[in-house]
């Protein structure tokens, strides 16, 4: 796993020279580069090499990220490392970033205790490393964005409304089927078009339907856009408050948690998240092997200009390529045998020897490789010092350092050969095979992923115990078939799914059927989802209370006390409480009867309960609005339980007789104009109508009586 690096970038020396020249010079732009991704997505490849050092077109991923940051003008970068931090540190120290001429100072912060992005940011806060706005980025971002405009907007926003906007996320516009869109990372975002504020953020992974809270559309914002054509680049411009917020909330582990937490608590804390959409330039975040291949091919096809291979932006002597037609890049000292054809989109590293009659397309070959004769490489990614013997066919696979492929082997798409693996002659590896020198059952323990040293000893001892399975790796092979870890399975499945091309069509099925349109009947009381859960819990609690009350014959006063305390505990409003109470009481007999949903039985069961709990009702129903709420709740209940419709009149009669509800209110409710169709139908119920008539007559009599 990549180590985390937090790079701080100082920035803004250029961009901040804006309105007020008399202000002190703006602090240098800082960046936090997290060089560890805290998941095991790239196992077993990343067991040998941290994710940030995986070569994309023969250049380590972290170099791309640092180049992007430096081009933006960042002056101080903090690289946070956890897994394999020594390797990352060594690599960076040899690179151009640590030379004294580098405009970007790289500082390392290493710790084995980090377990998530949250930990890193908490550390950032604890050490007060950040002085002003900083760029937060992970070590596996490849992009050529120019985010100076986004930076300026962010600063302006923070200046205008003092510190309300906490973070600006950078997205790239890209249509849903694009091969560089990672299926795992897909999001749906609702935003305010005028201010680019993020209103709702949801991962779409695997979902076919999406739910958006009504509050999204009900507030005063004019133009709400719901977008699915955005690619999350994992680049964020953060303010120092972000680190503080992470410290305050210990359960924020990832950026997603943070975003969701902020959006949910928006009213409370008043913090907002904004976004910036890039249309022109390229940006991507490598989260799985499929993305790795996609971005590799994009780099070769020059989408990430000027970070193209022949530019040699990492200033490494081994990396100078010449660029020829059809995107063929050849390093120094490459020798190509007779009859070999480099068709298109090929990158060959320095010192590689390719035999005769080979056919190579869409591939990346590292340095000092030896490739035999009659080899077909299509979509292959080979790292350094790989040996490939004659008559081999490799399709869409990744072969890591120093692996060896013997004669007549055929690798089907999406195979992975991890480093130093040998695959024996004459075998065919089926799709999605992963072979690694590390025995697979080792990796169950979580601790292993973070401590390098203990792993090594265990592996050595285990290797002596097990031999290599000849069926998997061939007669001369060395390596174990990596039994799909949970993550690797997902990797393969997703690769299969996306290679078979179903684009994300999640919106097709989001037409809500009328059966499921519960939302229309439940109005604003259920605005945001956390509250929904609360109400449900409250409902259960009330139910429990009433059950106990009935079994143990607790007096109504105590019940009232209990319900009151529950109400405060769950922060339920009076209106909702009323509804819940009525609903619970009306549903109570249903539980006892369960099979027999007959009106008569129901009513006879309900009657004694109502009588017992009259004081309860009377306590809560005092004002007219309470009556109305109760009636609405009753109406809803009966609409849900059609079979019991006939007893609605009796129930209402009972309520009336017990003086829980008054005639005026009932009549009022009955004559309510704006009810739904079902409500109208309910009202047409004969018995109900008779009851209402009786009520009216009764009222006239009593009002006559009063007048006298």
């Amino acid at each position, binding site marked *: 796993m990549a180590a985390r690096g937090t790079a701080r970038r100082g920035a803004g020396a250029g961009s901040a020279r804006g309105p007020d020249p008399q202000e002190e010079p703006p602090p240098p732009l800082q960046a936090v580069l997290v060089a560890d991704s805290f998941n095991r997505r790239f196992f077993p490849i990343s067991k040998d090499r941290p994710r940030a050092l995986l070569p994309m077109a023969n250049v380590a991923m972290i170099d791309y990220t640092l180049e992007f940051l430096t081009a933006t003008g960042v002056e101080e970068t903090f690289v946070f490392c956890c897994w394999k931090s020594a390797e990352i540190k060594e690599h960076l120290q040899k690179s151009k970033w640590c030379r004294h001429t580098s405009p970007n100072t790289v500082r390392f912060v290493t710790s084995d205790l980090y377990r998530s992005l949250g930990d890193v940011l908490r550390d950032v806060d604890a050490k007060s490393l950040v002085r002003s706005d900083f760029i937060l980025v992970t070590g596996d971002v490849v992009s050529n964005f120019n985010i100076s405009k986004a930076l300026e907007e962010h600063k302006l926003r923070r200046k205008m409304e003092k510190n309300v906007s906490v973070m600006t996320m950078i997205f790239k516009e890209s*249509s849903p089927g694009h091969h560089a869109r990672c299926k795992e990372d897909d999001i749906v975002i609702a935003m305010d078009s005028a201010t680019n504020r993020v209103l709702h953020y949801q991962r779409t992974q695997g979902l076919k339907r999406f739910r958006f809270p009504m509050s999204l559309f009900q507030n005063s914002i004019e133009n709400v856009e719901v977008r699915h054509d955005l690619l999350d680049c994992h680049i964020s411009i953060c303010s120092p408050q972000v680190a503080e917020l992470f410290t305050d909330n210990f359960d924020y582990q990832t950026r997603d948690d943070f975003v969701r937490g902020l959006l949910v608590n928006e009213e409370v804390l008043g913090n907002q998240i904004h976004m910036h959409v890039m249309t022109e330039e390229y940006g991507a975040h490598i989260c799985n092997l499929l993305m790795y291949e996609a971005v590799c091919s994009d780099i070769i096809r020059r989408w990430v200009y000027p970070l193209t291979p022949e530019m040699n932006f990492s200033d490494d002597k081994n990396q100078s390529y010449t660029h020829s037609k059809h995107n063929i890049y050849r390093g120094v000292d490459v020798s190509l045998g007779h009859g070999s054809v480099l068709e298109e989109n090929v990158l060959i590293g320095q010192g590689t020897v390719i035999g005769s009659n080979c056919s190579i397309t869409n591939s990346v070959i590292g340095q000092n490789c030896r490739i035999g004769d009659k080899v077909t490489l299509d979509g292959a990614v080979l790292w350094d010092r790989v040996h490939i013997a004659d008559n081999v066919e490799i399709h869409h696979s990744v072969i890591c350092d120093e692996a060896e492929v013997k004669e007549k082997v055929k690798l089907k798409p999406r195979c992975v050969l991890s480093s130093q693996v040998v695959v024996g002659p004459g075998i065919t590896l089926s799709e999605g095979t992963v072979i690694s020198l590390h025995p697979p059952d080792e990796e169950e323990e979580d601790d292993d992923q973070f401590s390098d040293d203990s792993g090594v000893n265990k592996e050595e001892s285990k290797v002596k115990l097990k031999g290599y399975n000849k069926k998997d790796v061939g007669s001369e092979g060395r390596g174990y078939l990596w039994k799909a870890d949970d993550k690797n399975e997902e990797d393969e499945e997703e690769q299969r799914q996306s290679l078979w091309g179903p684009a994300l069509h999640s919106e097709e099925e989001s037409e809500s059927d009328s059966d499921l349109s519960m939302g229309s009947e439940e109005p604003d009381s259920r605005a945001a989802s956390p509250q929904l859960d609360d109400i449900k819990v409250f409902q259960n609690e009330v139910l429990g209370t009433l059950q106990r009350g009935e079994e143990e014959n607790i007096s109504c006063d105590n019940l009232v006390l209990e319900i009151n305390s529950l109400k405060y505990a769950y922060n339920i409003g009076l209106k909702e409480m009323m509804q819940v109470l009525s609903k619970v009481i009306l549903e109570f007999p249903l539980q006892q009867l369960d099979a027999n949903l007959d009106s008569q039985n129901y009513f006879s069961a309900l009657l004694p309960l109502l009588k017992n709990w009259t004081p309860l009702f009377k306590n809560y129903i005092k004002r007219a609005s309470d009556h109305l709420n109760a009636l609405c709740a009753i109406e809803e209940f009966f609409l849900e339980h059609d079979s019991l419709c006939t007893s609605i009149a009796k129930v209402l009669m009972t309520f009336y007789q017990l003086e829980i509800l008054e005639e005026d209110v009932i009549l009022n409710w009955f004559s309510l104009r704006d009810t739904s169709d079902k409500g109208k139908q309910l009202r047409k119920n004969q018995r109900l109508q008779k009851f209402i008539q009786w009520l009216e007559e009764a009222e006239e009599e009593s009002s006559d009586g009063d007048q006298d």
Partner: protein
Amino acid sequence: MDLIRTEGQRMTAAQPSETTVGNMVRRVLKVIREEYGRLHGRSEESDQQESLHKLLTSGGLSEDFRTPYPSLRANVIEAINEMLIELEGTTDNIAMQALEHIHSNEVIMTIGYSRTVEAFLKEAARKRKFQVIVAECAPFCQGHEMAVRLSKENIETTVMSDAAIFAVMSRVNKVIIGTKTILANGALIAVSGTHTLALAAKHHSTPLIVCAPMFKLSPQFPNEEDSFHKFVSPQEVLPFTEGEILAKINVHCPVFDYVPPELITLFISNIGGNAPSYIYRLMSELYHPDDYEL
């Protein structure tokens, strides 16, 4: 000298298509050689190359550049300053020749945006009345900017797409273009679309005039066509948002075109007008043969 040479190699390796960098390094090297030669006691006429007579008689002349001269440094710096002044004045020099080439009521065609051509046309517009047609030079469409600037000087300007170049060529009197680089054989590396323009001009026998200052002359021959090319992000041609199709196709966006010397009529530079076949001679005045290959 070696120091300068290594630095020069490094700079040109960084961006091979910017040949001006290499040219300047070579000029400086030539200046150093000259100054050294002057101080070393040889007369100014001694061109170590070119004259056949000298080649036959002087045998192997080797400069060892070892003898230190205290005033060498000052002389070199002075010569470099002169060169800088000359560089600053190139555009004006070229513009001064405008009146001889542009006559009234002519239709002139150009492509893309070139500061040299802009100055050239503006200078001519002060005295003469003519029309300009600008080809927009997709995909970067710099022709638009050119047209805007020209029209500010009250020159009648028309913008058209590259596809219409051949169609309109019959009405054009002259074609004046700028270039990125002039190669040793008189060929051009110019913006993408110039070759089309040159071919159309040749077909209609319209003179093609190239306005370029001398620092763009590079002593390289077009051996490997690939080495001059610059392909940028295909974003301009087919934007990223197109989606799935991008995985199945190859999109290229070349920036430069190669125009062979047969299609060019005249080079106008700060030292006057020259035919393409004479370029090799000009090179000898600017660069020393040993420096051709940095």
